[in-house]
Each structure stands twice: as C-alpha cells, then as structure tokens.
C-alpha cells in the first residue's frame, strides 16, 4: 500500500539462535519482511514462534545471528541510538516512584529536552491517550488499562515515527482491550505512525492491522503474510462483517498450516 516510500523495517534471511544449556534454540529463521511507512503490522502466532524476539531484534534488544535487518535505513543499534522508535512492553512498566506525568516525561528527560518542551509534550501525549487530569497520580492509583495507556503515551512522547508494541493489551480484560484497540486505531490514524504489534489474539490482529504476519514455532519463522482488505476507518462492529471473518479465517488457516495447534 505504501510501496514507493522507503521501508521503515527491512529484514532479509534474518535468523537468531539462542545458546541455551539444552543446546541451541532457533528463535528466528529465514525471516524476510519489509514494513513500509504508516503501516500497522501485527505479528501473530503461538508462544515460542519468535514474534516477541523479532520485535526485540528490531528494537536492538537482541542481536540477530544471521541475515540482515535495517530500521529506518540504519542498523537497529543506530536506530536505537537515534531514538527511532518507542517501545511498549507487555506490562506498563511504569516507575512506581514517578507520577504519570513524570513517567511520560522520563524519555524526554533522558533526551535532555528543556523543561518547557517536556511539559508541552507531556500535555499533548496525555491528551492523545485520554489521560488528561491524571498527571499527578501515581501508577498504582490507575487501573491496568489506564496504566497501559500511560505507557503508550510514554512511547509516543518523544515523537518517534515507529511504535513497537509487544502484546500491550495481553494482560487486560476483553472489555478494556476492545476499548483500547479502538483508541489505538484512532491514534494511529491521527499520528500516521508505523506500528509493529505483537499479539496472540486473532480478532485483535485482524481488527487493527493493515498487514498480518503469521508466525509459527520450532524454528520461529514467518509462515504467511496477509494483507487486510478492511478500510482504514473501522468501527468495532466491523468484526461482525463477512470480510472481517474471512480474513480471520485466513489467519487461522495460516496458524494451522504452521502446525501451531500441535501440542
């Protein structure tokens, strides 16, 4: 869909083998993938398929042992050093001793922005995730969903064009998750970021993505890539449409083809 713009993430023959006490484990093998600017790409698969590992390689939290990968045309390390991406973890990972505004301001402090600039960005990103009014609260005073929204705000605060999200809503109940999915889509539309989103929920992946990367384990690999035909504007009840269900069925087939339902 954005074929002529430069790739944000480009991987070729990418592999990663962990050395463990039980011998080598191939977490990723032969991954070829190109993600264009403005895409919303989901990585789906059972545990052990390497979806989180792939995200961590993009983020330079793991080093690949084979193949090449570039992020914004640089190595992942250079990309990290230039703060090319914001990362959202499975848990909100807020610092409990900082208020919400100071948590969101953490990356800004590290980058070394002026106080005024920090305050301005904190205000703007908290508005973006609908958390205005909670600036002075500590994380424990917020619900799980609000904490995760604060952590998304923190990832957005320094205006990186790439957002890496590792099962950010996995620990939340379905009602909160629906709500956050809706908000995330809205946010993606408004900010025009590129988003890589790891999940193990088929409806979540289909609802959010422009492209769904289906992965399977042993060794972790890409077994299918599905282009979504859904429009960019997606109300929650789009999930009842035949088009949505057809894509979901393809994802399910892809998972089955990768023997992901074994054991």
């Amino acid at each position: 869909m954005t074929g002529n713009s430069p790739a944000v993430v480009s991987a070729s023959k990418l592999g990663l083998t962990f050395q463990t006490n039980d011998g080598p484990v191939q977490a990723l093998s032969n991954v070829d993938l190109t993600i264009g600017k403005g895409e919303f790409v989901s990585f789906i698969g059972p545990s052990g398929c390497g979806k989180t590992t792939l995200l961590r390689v993009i983020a330079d939290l793991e080093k690949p042992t084979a193949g090449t990968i570039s992020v914004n045309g640089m190595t992942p390390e250079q990309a990290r050093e230039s703060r090319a991406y914001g990362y959202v973890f499975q848990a909100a990972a807020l610092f409990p001793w900082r208020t919400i505004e100071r948590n969101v301001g953490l990356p800004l402090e590290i980058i070394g922005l002026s106080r005024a600039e920090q305050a301005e960005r904190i205000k703007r990103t908290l508005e973006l995730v609908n958390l205005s009014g909670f600036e002075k609260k500590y994380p424990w005073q917020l619900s799980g969903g609000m904490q995760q929204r604060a952590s998304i705000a923190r990832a957005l605060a320094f205006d990186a064009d790439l957002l890496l999200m590792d099962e950010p809503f996995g620990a939340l109940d379905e009602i909160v998750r629906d709500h956050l999915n809706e908000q995330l889509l809205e946010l993606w539309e408004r900010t025009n970021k590129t988003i890589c989103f790891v999940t193990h929920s088929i409806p979540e992946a289909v609802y959010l993505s422009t492209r769904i990367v289906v992965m399977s384990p042993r060794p972790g690999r890409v077994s299918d890539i599905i282009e979504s035909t859904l429009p960019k504007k997606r109300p929650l009840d789009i999930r009842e449409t035949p088009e949505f269900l057809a894509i979901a069925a393809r994802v399910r087939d892809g998972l089955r083809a990768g023997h992901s339902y074994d054991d």
Partner: protein
Amino acid sequence: MDSFRDKIVPVTSILLGVVVVWYVMAVVLNTPFQRDLDRRANEAPGVVEFLGKTLSQPKPTLPAPHQVATNFFENTFLRSVTSNRSLVYNAWVTLSSTLLGFAFGTALGIVIAVGIVHVATLERSLMPWIIASQTIPILAVAPMIIVVLAAIGITGLIPKALISTYLSFFPVAVGMVKGLRSPEIMHLDLMHTYNASRAQTFWKLRVPASVPFLFTSMKVAVAASLVGAIVGELPTGAVAGIGAKLLAGAYYSQTIDIWSALVAGSVVAALLVMVVGIAGRLVDRAMGGRPA
C-alpha cells in the same frame, strides 16, 4: 482500635509473662544469699518477709523488675543531665558515637555497593573480604582499633565511631547491592530503548529502586552501630557511656546499675530503629508509595 487489638495486646501479654518469669527467677536466684544473710544474723523470717527481702537486696544476683525500674527512673529523670550518673548523659555519649559511626557506615556501605554493582572485578575481589570482616569477633578487634588509633593520637569519639562503622557498613553494603540490582529486566530494557547512559540508568532507575532496600538495611545497621559503640567503650576504660556504665557496674557488683544501663541501651536501640523506620515510611510516601 484494630492496631490496639492486633499489636498492643499480644506484645503486652508477652511482656507480662516476662515480668512474671523475671520475678520468679529473682526470688530463686537471690534465695541462697538471703538464706546466708539470715543465718548469720540469726533471723528466721516468715515466707512473705523472706520473699520481700530477696526482692530488695542492694546487690542482688538478679535484680527484681521494680528495682531496675526505680533505678532507671531515678537515673533518667531525677538527675541533672550533666551528671555522669545520669543515664541520659551516658546514653547521649554512646548515642553520639553511634550516630557518627552509623553515618560513616551507611556512606561506606553505599560506596561499596555502587562499586560492586558497576565493577565486576570488585564483586569478586571485595565481597569475600567484606563477608570475612564480619566473621571476626568485634570484641577482639575493638581494643586493637582503639589502641592503634590512640597511638597515632586519635582518641575520643572517632575510634568508637569507627567500631560502629565496622559493624554497620556491612548490612548497608549487602542491602544496597541487592537494591541497586532490583530493577526489573523490563525497566532496564526500557532505559536501553531510550539509549540512556549508565549514569542516567543509575540515577533515574537504580537509585530510586534501591531506596526501600536502603531503609531496611539501615534499620539493621543502626542497631549494629549501637552495639559497636557500646563495645567500643568497654576496652578503653571509657569514663562515660552505656558501655562504661556496664563496666563500672560489673566492677563494683552494682547489678541494678548494670540492668538499668541495659534497659537504657535497649530504649536507645528501639528509638533508633523506630526513627529509621519512620524516616523510611516518610520517604516511601514522598516517592508515591501506596499507603499500607
């Protein structure tokens, strides 16, 4: 009201039990000497009179609680605080070296912990020595420290404080190593994604994460500091301090004085631990801790 039922009642019951056992033991232990006295004086007192006498000897083997309480009360509240018999004065002398030693010890413990967390070789080279240092009986080391320091002209507060330091740096060092390493992997990864420098990770993540560990270890350290200060007073023939009171009491068989000095020491220890605990809670609250 709940805290009354949950805390005060059980603690008071134990205290009552201790007092009862104490009285019984006082009678039992003081009986032989009292019999001896009575035999020499050719007296044959009744049971009640005899019991009363065992509990009011001037130099009993085991003073009765009320004797200790009276002595403690007199020497704490009825004497001028400048008198060298005043427990307040003696407690202050010990307290001042305790606090100085505790401050040194905490600072030293933190410095060692920071070193160990950041320099891998320090952990391997320093840690065994730190642990070994605590296996040496302090009673053996204390006189040497004091004699050696006196030989180079350092006397008074500093040598005693150094013994407190010796005992108090250890829990702080161990606690802080644990505390500085307590951040979750996820938090460390987060700092990594921001390309944070080591110094930034240290100040913004490791230090705040270690604060609860610091206060827990400081509670242990402050009690150890007090022990160090008291022990430091024993071999020097110190003229004042709780240790000096203990020693003087032992010389002159003033058992009641010994016990009331002991009580004074315990009160000081309890107060110190309490103050550190309160400080810890205030800091926790200031850092956004969830009220218990």
